[in-house]
């Protein structure tokens, strides 16, 4: 069965790659199978892990889970246009939970902790920092401050404030350059994995 599996995997892989040449039925078939398999995988996983594992097995110990089950069923009412409005209740629950939870998470970890980490002794705690370290600390502090200044759009970016925002833009450009480089690295890594499968696991050409 593994032999059949390898050929199915190879067929589907090359089907997706055929799109590089042009759109074709082989690619469309592979894409359709991907959609069906993905949807099926997600449903099976949610069924066993959540509906059975979390709700059905634990409902005896925790009857309050029935409220979650009712909210979940209300969510599924979206499939029926006439009573689809019922799904607003669980949606409102999700939006409220996410808003409240994220508000505190982002405020503490993404805002306050980052500001705290930016307030650093530029010359080192005992004034022992090397020239490179001092320069690096200045880059970090000035870059963060100027970057935040750039995102303040309530004041026109002119004069001293404009110059500050400009430095912020340069810092953000370096960030984007690094992100671009790492995106290239990531995409190439994905391709390496697939190529290794084709020439290695499937065709056995790599020793």
């Amino acid at each position, binding site marked *: 069965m593994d032999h059949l599996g390898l050929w199915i995997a190879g067929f589907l892989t090359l089907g*997706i790659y055929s799109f590089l040449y042009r759109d074709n039925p082989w690619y469309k078939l592979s894409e359709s199978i991907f959609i069906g398999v993905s949807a099926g995988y997600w449903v099976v996983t949610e069924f066993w892990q959540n509906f059975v594992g*979390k709700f059905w097995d634990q409902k005896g110990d925790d009857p309050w889970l029935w409220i*979650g089950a009712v909210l979940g069923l209300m969510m599924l009412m979206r499939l029926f246009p006439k009573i689809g409005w019922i799904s607003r209740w669980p949606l*409102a629950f*999700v939006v409220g939970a996410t808003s409240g939870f994220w508000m505190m998470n982002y405020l503490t970890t993404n805002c306050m902790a980052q500001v705290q980490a930016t307030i650093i002794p530029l010359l080192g705690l005992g004034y022992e920092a090397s020239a490179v370290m001092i320069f690096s600390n200045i880059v970090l502090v000035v870059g963060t401050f100027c970057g*935040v200044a750039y995102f303040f759009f309530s004041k026109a970016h002119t004069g001293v404030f404009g110059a500050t925002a400009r430095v912020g833009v340069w810092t953000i450009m*370096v960030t984007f350059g690094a992100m671009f480089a790492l995106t290239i690295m990531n995409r190439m890594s994905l391709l390496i994995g697939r190529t290794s499968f084709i020439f290695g696991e499937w065709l056995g050409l790599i020793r």
Partner: protein
Amino acid sequence: MRREVPLFITGIVGVVFVVSYFIPAAPFCYLDSKFSDWFSIVQACAIVLGALNLIVISTKKVVGRKEKWGYPVAIVVSFIIVIAAGVGGGREYMTTGTSFDWLYRYSYVPLSSTMYAILAFYVASASYRAFRARNVEATMLLVAAFLVMLGRVPVGDVVTSFMPIGARMSDLQQWIMDFPQTAGQRAVMIGIALGLVSTALRVILGIERSHLGGGD
């Protein structure tokens, strides 16, 4: 009532999560736990909703013999096969050697991996065609990208092997990631966090109602 009740739910649930951060004692810790449990179940149902919606639409295309109805057949058939293997496999459906595991390794893995892997070609082609040093900012972006790309692979250190240890390409790349890149990321993170806090407050207080949709 169709809009007021959801707004009330949003407000109450949001307030509970905010207050439970500051007052981790009862009843807020208890409500926090229950709401987290319910969230898990609701999210699972939302995921299943998406999958079922897809199958409903595909089935309608097949039954109605719409144009190129053969592809929706493939969607529905592959969905049914995976469901049968997964649900029929029992609680140990994920164990190595089961039919579900086989389908995962030889259909889901190659398809999903290749869908993303194909982007490598397009990102290289787009870089060749569109990435231009038109001005100072674009040049800075380009130079930073080159240094990081070269520094993250061993050839960068080979090219700068004449430099002392600590001053080679990998060290320069690490410095860029640790200092200017972190500074820029922090600025973006702080900006997003402040924006998110204000939006979250608007949602909890009922000022922002777009999540309820239009009509009714």
